[in-house]
């Protein structure tokens, strides 16, 4: 795995020192809040509803066990004993005290982590398929590319004050597990005539004006990646709208200019700057590819797993739900669900973080991932180790067998934490999960993506949920709008609004009616909710939500 270069190390240490001095000057009164705010945001420090919040980057969602352990230490020593993993492969701590934050940043630097560019109008953490390096359907591990992008984008002098933030995701598989099409820019590793290169998409995004990214180039050679990205970001940096915050994202630039015009402008810029890139980046990339080489896989006998599964239905169910096929025959990738029914999606306690770190050392070659669906992944586990891993996870409440099911909900922090929120998300997610558990319908329903945001910014990805829920403020009361048919994968789609929103205590019953309608109307158990919705259209679901009123409204 990637370890910091001397340059990285010195850079991060210097930033920690600077920020410690800035905090001291804020506390002694020599900096005003107006002066301090941009400085704290540059270091991932927000002020939320009830406390400060620190957002820490987990580049391409990859963590070493010692890093996970350190996050657990931070949760216990400086926070209230837990942390919140997010859809952009970050972790957020919700309760740090201002005076402690420099110590937290030092503790992060000790394990080669930081909070730089986790806020502000910069290029944010580059996210990646959480099964990278393990997936059977990938061309190559996308993480060296992501690390190259991280090195290029971190502290890039031209890209510190852009029109808005800029989010990049990298994928390399036929099945998109990184929500590529709803990112400002997506880099997809592809092969053409036996040569590896990249397909680039731009202009996707959620928030106020959700859009699906469009292909700006079908293929560029690997050596052109950084100059091409530089050309895209520069073009947008120049023509992107700074007059209106809501029209500043690249999706609006692409929409207003059209993809052809955008392509033309990018190509012009590319032609101008290509020569600036000496090819050194390709040496770096080659080196990174070596650093991300897979671990020396154990050669264990997988038959013990089959035997254990045959006699233990709980294990069988969990293996069936929470593991994914691996490149290497006798291994699997494991999803550790942070979605125990009734708990906050994405939260892990310090103790759980330490346990996951230990289990990663014991059974997972010391490596963990954070998924954009707010779960933790052990990418490489030998089949023979799965029963022991399961037993250890189950003891800590970490073996919920619900990956991809109804209760595997993405929920943003909403009004329980977030200062921008218009309603709560977390309790809605908790209650839906508890309800489907009570009904015992999850296995029956199968693949289901419910996503919840507490405001129009769409951090919870509600637009791309099969069922999306958006919390709003209607005349001082929480109200929840439902969208259907969204999809964050390679067949990405923005969900359609069904009609008027639901009151806080009506939303769980409304979701229940949707689920039951699906079970009634699907043509087989193989037809997922999304497929059924695409076949049947919105009407039967609207009727389930609104009864006869739906028909009247339609008339």
């Amino acid at each position, binding site marked *: 795995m990637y370890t910091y270069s001397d340059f990285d190390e010195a850079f991060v240490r210097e930033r920690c020192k600077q920020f410690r001095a800035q905090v001291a000057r*804020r*506390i002694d*009164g020599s900096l*005003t*809040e107006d002066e301090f705010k941009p400085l704290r945001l540059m270091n991932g420090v927000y*002020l*939320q*509803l*009830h*406390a*400060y919040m620190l957002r820490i980057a987990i580049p391409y969602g990859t963590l070493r066990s010692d890093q996970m352990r350190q996050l657990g230490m931070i949760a216990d020593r400086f926070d*209230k004993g*837990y942390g919140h993993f997010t859809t952009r492969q970050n972790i957020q701590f*919700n*309760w*740090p*005290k*201002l*005076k402690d934050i420099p110590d937290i940043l030092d503790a992060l630097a000790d394990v080669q982590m930081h909070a730089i560019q986790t806020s502000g109008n910069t290029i944010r953490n580059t996210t990646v398929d959480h099964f990278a390096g393990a997936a059977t359907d990938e061309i190559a591990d996308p993480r060296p590319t992501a690390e190259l992008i991280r090195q290029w984008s971190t502290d890039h002098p031209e890209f510190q004050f852009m029109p808005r933030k800029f989010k990049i995701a990298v994928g390399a598989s036929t099945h998109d597990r990184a929500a590529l099409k709803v990112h400002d820019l997506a880099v997809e590793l592809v092969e053409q005539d036996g040569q590896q290169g990249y397909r680039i998409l731009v202009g996707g995004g959620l928030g106020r004006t959700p859009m699906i990214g469009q292909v700006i180039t079908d293929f560029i050679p690997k050596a052109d990646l950084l100059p091409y990205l530089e050309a895209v970001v520069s073009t947008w940096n120049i023509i992107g709208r700074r007059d209106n915050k809501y029209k500043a994202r690249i999706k609006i630039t692409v929409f207003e200019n059209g993809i052809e015009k955008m392509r033309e402008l990018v190509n012009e810029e590319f032609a101008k700057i290509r020569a600036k890139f000496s090819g050194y980046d390709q040496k770096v990339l080659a080196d990174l590819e070596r650093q991300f080489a897979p671990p020396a896989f154990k050669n264990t006998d997988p038959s013990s797993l089959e035997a254990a599964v045959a006699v233990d239905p709980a294990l069988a169910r969990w293996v069936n739900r929470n593991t994914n096929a691996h490149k290497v025959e006798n291994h699997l990738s494991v999803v550790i669900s942070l979605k125990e029914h009734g708990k*906050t999606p994405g*939260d892990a306690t310090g103790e759980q973080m330490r346990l996951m770190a230990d289990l990663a050392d014991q059974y997972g070659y010391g490596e963990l991932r954070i998924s954009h669906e707010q779960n933790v992944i052990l990418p490489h586990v030998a089949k023979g180790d799965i029963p022991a891993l399961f037993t250890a996870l189950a003891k800590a409440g970490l073996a919920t067998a619900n990956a991809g099911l109804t209760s595997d909900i993405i929920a943003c922090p909403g*009004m*329980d*934490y977030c200062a921008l*929120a218009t309603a*709560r998300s*977390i*309790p809605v997610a*908790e209650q839906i999960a508890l309800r489907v558990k009570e009904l015992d319908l999850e296995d029956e329903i199968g693949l289901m993506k419910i996503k919840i945001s507490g405001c129009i910014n769409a951090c919870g990805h509600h637009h791309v949920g099969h069922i999306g829920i958006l919390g709003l*403020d209607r005349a*001082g*009361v*929480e109200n929840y709008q439902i969208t259907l048919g969204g999809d964050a994968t390679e067949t990405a789609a923005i969900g359609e609004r069904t009609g008027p929103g639901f009151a806080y205590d009506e939303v769980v019953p409304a979701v229940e009616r949707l689920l039951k309608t699906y079970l009634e109307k699907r043509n087989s158990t193989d037809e997922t909710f999304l497929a059924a919705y695409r076949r049947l259209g919105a009407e039967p679901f609207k009727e389930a939500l609104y009864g006869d009123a739906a028909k009247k409204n339609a008339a």
Partner: protein
Amino acid sequence: MARKFTPKVLTANDLMEGDVIYLAADGSWVRDHAQAEFIEDETIAEMRMLVAQGQPEIAVGPYLADAKMGENGPEPTHFREAFRTRGPSNYFHGKQAETASQ
């Protein structure tokens, strides 16, 4: 035409802790909404904002929030402000826990 002024309390976050604070009638900052000054006059509200803005070493992001008079003192009228008096709903953290331990 200017809208009719509705009663307010002045609130902010504490610089060091980050938690929710309110300005009391004696000019001190308190943690409890019910002890906040109940401001019924627009001119006074504006003056209190100036007071709060003049104390950046204590109060971050001061603003006036709608309130009504209850039995024990001012109460929030909007759910957002009600949540701010309590803390999050997923854990017994924040103000709800602090008041319980007093």
